């Protein structure tokens, strides 16, 4: 029962107020993409032990989607940020680096 803060409305609530939406920063591949690209987009996920970027929706609240940077082992939440971005914000990545030196997640580090 995680506690998260919605960056859109500012409410801090517990997991029952939110809905998890899987891995963040997926790149959509549509018609014209190769089998490998489409498989990667539709099925392949990071499932890391450690730093993870996830999509969440404040479903029983403002209804907005947002992203969360979280540690799957320690359950630490490094921060939440807007879903309208292709990369995690630099200050958040710096904050994670301070706590977990040398981390990397897909193309981010």
């Amino acid at each position, binding site marked *: 029962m995680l506690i998260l803060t919605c960056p859109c409305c500012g409410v801090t609530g517990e997991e029952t107020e939110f809905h998890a939406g899987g891995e963040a920063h997926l790149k959509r591949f549509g018609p*014209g993409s190769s089998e490998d690209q489409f498989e990667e987009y539709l099925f392949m996920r990071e499932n890391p032990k450690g730093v993870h970027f996830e999509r969440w929706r404040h*479903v029983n609240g403002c209804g907005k989607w947002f992203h969360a940077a979280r540690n799957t082992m320690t359950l630490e*939440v490094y921060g939440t940020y807007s879903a*309208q971005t292709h990369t995690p914000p630099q200050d958040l990545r710096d904050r994670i680096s301070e706590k977990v030196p040398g981390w990397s997640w897909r193309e981010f580090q």
Partner: protein
Amino acid sequence: MSTRLATGGRLLNKSRALTFTFNGKSMKGFEGDTLASALLANDQMLVGRSFKYHRPRGIVASGAEEPNGLVNLGQGGRFEPNQRVTTTELFDGLTAKSQNHWPSLDFDVGALNSKMSRFMPAGFYYKTFMYPRPLWKHVYEPFIRKAAGLGAAPKDRDDDTYEHFYAFCDVLVIGGGVAGLQAAKAAADTGARVMLIEQTAHWGGRAPVDGGEVAGKSVDNFVDETVAALEAMENVTLRRRMMGAGVYDHGYVLGYERLTDHAPDAVGPRHRLWRIRAAQIVTATGAIERPLSFAGNDIPGVMLASAVRDYVTDFGVSPGDRTVVVTNNDNAYLTAIALKNAGLDVPAILDARVLPTDSALMAQAKSLGIRVLMGHGVSKVQGGKRVTGVAICSQAGEGSVLEEIACDVVAMSGGWSPVVHLWSHCGGKLVWDAGQAAFKPDVDKAPTGADGKPFVTAAGTASGALLLGDVLADADAAGKAAATAAGHAPAKGAAQAPDASHAPEAPMAPVWLMPQGAGIALRNKAWLDYQNDVKVSDVQLAAQEGFQSVEHAKRYTTLGMATDQGKLSNINGLAILSDSLNQPIPQTGTTTFRPPYTPISMGSIGGEARGDVFQPVRRTPMHAWHAENGAEWEPVGQWRRPYAYVRSGESSHDAVMRETKNARDNLGLLDASTLGKIIVRGPDAGKFLDMMYTNMMSTLKPGKCRYGLMCDENGFLIDDGVVARIDDDTWLCHTTTGGAERIHSHMEEWLQTEWWTWQVYVANVTEQYAQIAVVGPKARKALEHLGGMDVSAETMGFMDWADGTLGGFDVRVFRISFSGELSYEIAVKASQGQALWDALMAVGADLGVMPYGTECLHILRAEKGFIMIGDESDGTIIPQDLGLHWAISKKKEDFIGKRGQERSHMVDPTRWQLVGLETVDKSTLPDGAYAVAEGTNANGQRATEGRVTSTYHSPNLDRGIAMGLVLNGPDRMGEVLTFPGTDGKAYKAKIVSPVFYDPEGEKPNV
């Protein structure tokens, strides 16, 4: 014999006698008794039978760790199996029955299993029941299922009520022993909001039984004063009879409060499940004494030394006249001393240790005249349904009997294990304490919260401190640390833990097997897990057979898998496993501790959510009218829709047939308000809908409607409905009844997370409108009777919509049809829904109007071959399977699902295709039936070539009609397939077009 003593009984109110029954026999106890102490007071040591061998089982413990004393409690709507006698407070009129025996507790046929135990070692299920294969289904499985489970399942609906509570605090202290009290006091003194919960009815834990002094006075005094001080503090909440069931992520704790178990006549809910959010948690959960592993240690009368002490001191009960104490530590001497002081006989203390000098407790025991034998142990316990004596031996030897001592109780102590369950639930790690031979919390590896910092602190014996002074100092530090972490640092010069004194104890010595060289005959009778019948020999066999991981060995032997979850057996078991594997215990590690700490009632988990308030029910504006006019309800999502309007003297089938014929012959009204209505608006709305739907929506003209399909990225069909273009920037999308919220979220997700620069708003307006379908050849006449806007074929063609007035109502009329009849769907403001319905019923009176329900709707659409989401689709169906190619745009470069539908499996020509199915004898096909083909599939099962997706009796065609998915179906028109039913009949059906009724579509075209 066990009996009530003339004196003693710290927790009893002897002025109030209570009557209860055990296996129908009336017995007496006192207020303050547990069922266990009352049974012992009535000489009822034998309380049940073990799971596998049906061995006689007696009370072993005095608390939550009890593995044997499980009973069926109560009757009728208050019946509950597997209730622990040690945690059941006695009340007047309690009824209990023992479990897992036939025909009686004293004489049990299943006990023959015990004679067969040589043939039922660890993993015997896996080995024995594998071959020959056919025997599994017909002999082994039925037998095992019958034998499985201890108590009986309740048959009646639960008479009690339950509720959920929510609570928030800075520091939650779990456990109300002396450590919990001290930790709570230290935390509360900082001003932090503190909650202290205790699973039993009493504060102080076992300290009052074990004795000692705090600040120069008896420990009872300290308990009373601290409770009084805490009760006087406004920032403290105290709850007894409330267990910390589990610790979860980010300081979430489930508390399980038993409100009326001890007073069943009291008003109010029986259990309360607390959902607590704590900034910091202190686990002051104490420790559990370990049994010793010697032959016959499961015979009734062999008990934990601490439990024997509890029964004497707390309940004034003598478990037996003569007690032999067997121990590897000083603590058990307290039991011998307590028994002696109560006037009972202790023929000997068998101490497995060899110590150079007598400790203080030893000297005290000797001074009371108790014979102390150092370096000795039990070779074997004598007796069957009750201990009659012990054969003693040297601990260092192989069990040669030196002497036999008559006794009726054996009080054993193998040392103490801190209760680390709650610490471990959310990831707290453990460290091996070689001095105490126990796992204790590793303070450097606590569970961490949202900020990455520890949020659990163990206190007192739960953290490994054993003696009173150490316990209080440790708990004081824990309380202050937790308060500080929660933002409430103690003031300078804050009070320290009071001084405490307690008899010093000599170090314990680990003993995992008694005697240490016990041969197989003894090990085969040395129990680890009493409830599941796991012995030392079973764990050794598992190790020998290669089960090296503690988790594997647990599952192979079932050690610790009973309802007590191995509270007594786990450490002893993994010590035996480690020994067999020749590795140190910390290397073997423990199995995972999972919540709840002890079983909690299903009722408490459900809370208030049962019956009418199980989930919210959604009602349309016309719901009450439907109810008054014979509606039988069908749940569709959270909505209730009329299945049919049943008239008096009619069956529901009759009603459905009548409604279906009438809609085709005259005039039907359907409450279509539940269909989802989503407004999509903005400069990019057309572009967006072209991505959402498989067909083109951007080209739809204002004033027109178009049927659309929605898929997910896999290409699978997820919803369908009619889309109307309202103006240049606005579309109205209809969804299925169950789909409105889902599709609205689906749209929001794509807009917010993928195409966030597109200028589109979506709004779910489903409940803002009531919608009524006016269906049948007389539909237009009905609207003309209402008067108002022109609904003629010339002005309003098929798939047109228009705003206007009808009968004085502001309406939006869609000329669309899900029935194949002339049909108008009329939307009004929700507040006008009932009035419009009444007006339509009035003008329809001369036209033969009848309301119709969902089953009629289904038959009408099936007669026309229209698909239904959830019948023809099931999450693995693409529109192409259903012959809906015409609704999939070939012009669009992209839409959700387009790429998915290009995958090789989706374009496979052998995908089953939608067809109509017509039974040869006009009967109705069974729903979900499969068409069988020649041969077998890869699993050796009968091959199939199709299945039924919708099936009804059509009153208009007077025959069974069905739709189904069939291999190469559209190319096999006229072929007859065979559908075996679960009724044993084989149904024959011919492949036909799915459009059964009015194939030319002439009826609505008027």
